[in-house]
């Protein structure tokens, strides 16, 4: 059993555009999701920003369950008039999003 290699940290905040960057690093698989789920939710809850950018530059991998989680996050935030953008997806992650059909749904 490996320790899940995943971390989610607050990045920069731009007050002009009211955008908070959140940095993802490691692998978002089943164990990884279990580890960061609550932290990410509370990070989003506590932040007063309206816009969030999920920076996936350091994210190596994402599985379908985690994608489902992102979708539910997006819907939840949308209800509170907040939105998410995903940036710096590597080719593997972009492929997965593309295959599932999510590039049309998420702003990437």
């Amino acid at each position, binding site marked *: 059993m490996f320790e899940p290699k995943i971390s989610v940290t607050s990045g920069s905040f731009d007050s002009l555009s009211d955008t908070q960057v959140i940095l993802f690093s490691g692998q978002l698989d089943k164990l990884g999701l279990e580890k960061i789920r609550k932290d990410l939710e509370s990070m989003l809850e506590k932040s007063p920003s309206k816009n969030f950018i999920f920076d996936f530059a350091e994210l190596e991998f994402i599985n379908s369950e985690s994608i489902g989680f992102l979708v539910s996050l997006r819907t939840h935030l949308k209800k509170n008039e907040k939105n998410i953008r995903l940036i710096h997806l590597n080719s593997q992650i972009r492929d997965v999003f*593309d295959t599932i059909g*999510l590039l049309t*749904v998420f702003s990437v």
Partner: protein
Amino acid sequence: MKFFRITLLRKIFFIFLLLEGIGAAALFFLEKNGFSSFSRFHVTLIFSGTLFFAFVLFWIWMSHPLYQVLCQMEALLSGRLYKKIYTERTDEVGVFAHFFNEVAKRLSSYTSRLQEGQRMAGELSTAAEIQRSILPLTAPIIPGLIVTAKTRPAAEVGGDSFDFITVGEKTFFYLGDVTGHGVPAGLIMSMVNMLVSTYSEVFESPFDIVVNLNRQLKRRIQLARFMTMVMMKWDHVQRKLSYAGAGHEHILVFRAKTGTVDVIKTGGIALGMVSDNSQLTKEIPLDLAENDVVLLYSDGITEGKNMNGEMFGLERLKDSLLRYAPQYNPEGIAQHVADDLGHFMEGHQPDDDISLILVKNVGDLTVAQNDVAQKTQW
């Protein structure tokens, strides 16, 4: 007195001191007043009185408390009702009492957890049985095709599903994968299986099935859940294959003529994401020449990890198909792909359900398939 309460040894020491004290006092008294002032009777009285007092202390401090602890221990060991021991003592007897309480508490907690676990395992096994009865136990015999379908859930109840439904001169078949696994995923996949069965009898095109499935699912499933799927249709008469995608993994096709493997994007969007997916998917024809083999898979296979955290991946799956398709029929290909995956994962347990469908165009041949080849449980 606190000094003496701390251990039994100290208590015994106290009794000893007491005896010594009384003895010394008696001797002193005798010395002062002369031995003759005491009759035998008096000596005996004092002696037995002192001993009696010592025994009483011994009983109060050691024997009786130990006996109480032992009583409860005996009750526990023989399966009778036992009670928690209340004490404020901090000496050895106190330790015994607290130890007993702690052991009894943990035993009770483990027992109830074990019972809960057994009850849940019982429920899961029932759910798994229900699910097993929904998924086809054997791959069907379809005119012009040899078919193999294999699935293995990661947990008791899986999120992967597939089915083959022949209506008149066409056969619909699909491979679907609900996010996650376990009971919630299993419930969704059972629902979808039922719907596909119904829709196959009503619609001509896999496109319609996918659109209607999506509409039904979107209303009923939670936000974080969705289902990827590829819905295929084989026309017996025209010997043509077509498909409509719902965000599923790629379709691999082994081309017998060129000995190569095509990787085709399934297209579409996963079921349950948007309320209307009709603009995002369509029915696409898939050329399938004689001896060509179609491979459908769920991401449990490509995302299977080895001990280094490396994934099996699409390339390895493609290589496996390339290697085995020329030599084996679908059953053989499936077994060898499973072997490759097993070797790669080095005994590491899969996180996700794994499923595979292999379909080979055999032209006019009617090939009889054996029972073993047709079993779908991996």
